[in-house]
């Protein structure tokens, strides 16, 4: 199958300690791939490398056959790569609606307009409301983002990512901090995207059982290194994974 994202020997050193080390990854188009691993395994750091927040000390990243290793984050976003953040990362003093509207505006390619027709603005807002509804946040559209509860901020984060309409979605623990009753609804949103079939999803998860049935394939990261990769079934049965990850650490963490 054609791959949308490929990394080769991706490595980053933080003063001697390699948080990500020699990771060669391949994500086929229109797949739902999960990355799992214990705390501090380097999952978020890997995402930071993919989305351009960090520069690798070594290795390359190919996105849609283009070398993007040295491309800035906004340009990667415009190429069709969108990410959500594990630590909530929104615009605190803007309304919830405006937070999402900014993402809609960007994906519509409206960047330097001094003047815009009111109808266009309305259209952006309507689209933003649609994404807010999909994460059950439309009731809060006029609140300032900083007044949201933690779980609501997480949902806003997802709405902003969806509004970018990326071809490749990088989701960093999307369900962390969301109340147990709401988690299935968020997973439904992800399932919906998967079923549309035109997006590729790369999702970081801490708790493996959460995403096993959604994932087409699972990659395990441990101490910055790629430990194993395969179908959810393979990973479940992989002895190396069980001893390194599922064994002790998994129980502590969940």
């Amino acid at each position, binding site marked *: 199958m054609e791959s949308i994202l490929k990394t080769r020997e991706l490595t980053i050193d933080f003063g001697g300690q390699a948080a990500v080390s020699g990771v060669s990854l391949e994500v086929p188009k229109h797949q739902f791939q999960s990355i799992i691993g214990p705390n501090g395994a380097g999952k978020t750091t890997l995402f930071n490398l993919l*989305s351009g*927040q960090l520069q690798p000390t070594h290795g390359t990243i190919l996105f849609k056959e283009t070398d993007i290793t040295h491309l*800035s*984050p*906004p*340009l990667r*976003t*415009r190429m069709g790569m969108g*990410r959500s*953040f594990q630590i909530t*990362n*929104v*615009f*605190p*003093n*803007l309304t919830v609606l*405006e937070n999402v*509207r*900014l*993402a809609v*505006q*960007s*994906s519509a390619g*409206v*960047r*330097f*307009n*001094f*003047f*815009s027709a009111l109808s266009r*603005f309305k259209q952006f807002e309507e689209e933003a409301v649609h994404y807010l509804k999909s994460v059950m946040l439309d009731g809060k559209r006029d609140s300032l983002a900083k*007044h949201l509860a933690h779980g609501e901020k997480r949902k806003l984060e997802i709405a*902003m990512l969806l509004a*970018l309409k990326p071809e490749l979605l990088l989701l960093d623990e999307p369900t962390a901090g969301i109340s147990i009753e709401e988690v299935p609804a968020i997973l439904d949103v992800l399932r919906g995207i998967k079923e549309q079939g035109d997006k590729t999803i790369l999702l970081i998860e801490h708790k493996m059982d959460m995403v096993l049935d959604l994932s087409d394939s699972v990659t395990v990261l441990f101490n910055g290194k790629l430990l194993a990769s395969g179908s959810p079934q393979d990973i479940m049965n992989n002895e190396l994974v069980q001893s390194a990850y599922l064994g002790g650490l998994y129980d502590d963490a969940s």
Partner: protein
Amino acid sequence: MRMISRYTIGLLPIVIIMLLAAYPFMNDSRSTLILLSKIFIFAVFAMSYDLLLGYTGIVSFGHAMFFGIGAYAIGIVMYKIGDSMGMLLLALLIGVVLAAIVSYIVGILTLRLQSHFYAMLTLAFAGLFTVLAEKWRSITKGNDGFPFPIPDFFRDRTTFYYFALVFMILFFLLLRRFTKSPLGRVLQAIRENEQRTASLGYQVVHYKVIVSVVAGVVAALCGGMYGMTLRFVNTSVFSMNTTLDALLMTIIGGIGTLYGGVIGAALIELAHELLTSLAKVHPIFERWIIFFGLLYILVVMVFPLGIAGTFKLWLKRKKTSIPLGKRDDVPW
């Protein structure tokens, strides 16, 4: 009841503008007309600073430089070349183009770095222009500056008063449109969270340079207008005090509101005037910076979001009827 009060508040600016328009018919004291003209001009200058500080979160320590460029452009052209209407337009154009070039250069050099670099480089450039104005005596007559003529049309204080009033209203509307445009919304996103704005696909540096140029150009026009008010220019237009005035006007009026600039400009200019007249009573009042400092502390304590900002919050509370007791936006 609520309807009525909202309606009145919407009407307030119109009433104020009508009163200001009628003012010359009630009282044509030259000094008051000049004072009010200066308030109108400084209001726009404060708005241009607000674009940087309040909307984008950029701190400039040398905004006076653009003001000074505009003022000197008018002065030099009027004095050296001629005081026709055409020359006035040429002078404004020169000021605008120079300000655009300088703000572009300063922006390109520093806006991709951490924020204090812009603050420091604008300060350095403002210093450079002060030195230039002091030393290039053949053109600028040094520290003392020089008086110059302006086109007859603007010599009439009442005419100029109306011109300045229209200037303020026009630029308020233009800049408000600018801040509400798609581009303006991105500026506010940058103020809130620069890195997140970038990851939404906006190239942050481009936006910062654009707003730096827009603010510089508007400030240069204000400087030109100021020169026309005084028909005199000296190095004080480049001084730190001029930047501080803009900063104080913006913060006291309320950052991120634009019309806060009008309130701030009125307060600061009136305070200037009052202190100057009180200086005859006791020389302590010449130390106006002390009093501005006190005014600043007072305003920040009573109106932590600036006067306009606090007013806006109060209006919103009223609308959504959240009890005033629960004020989590306010530090205390």
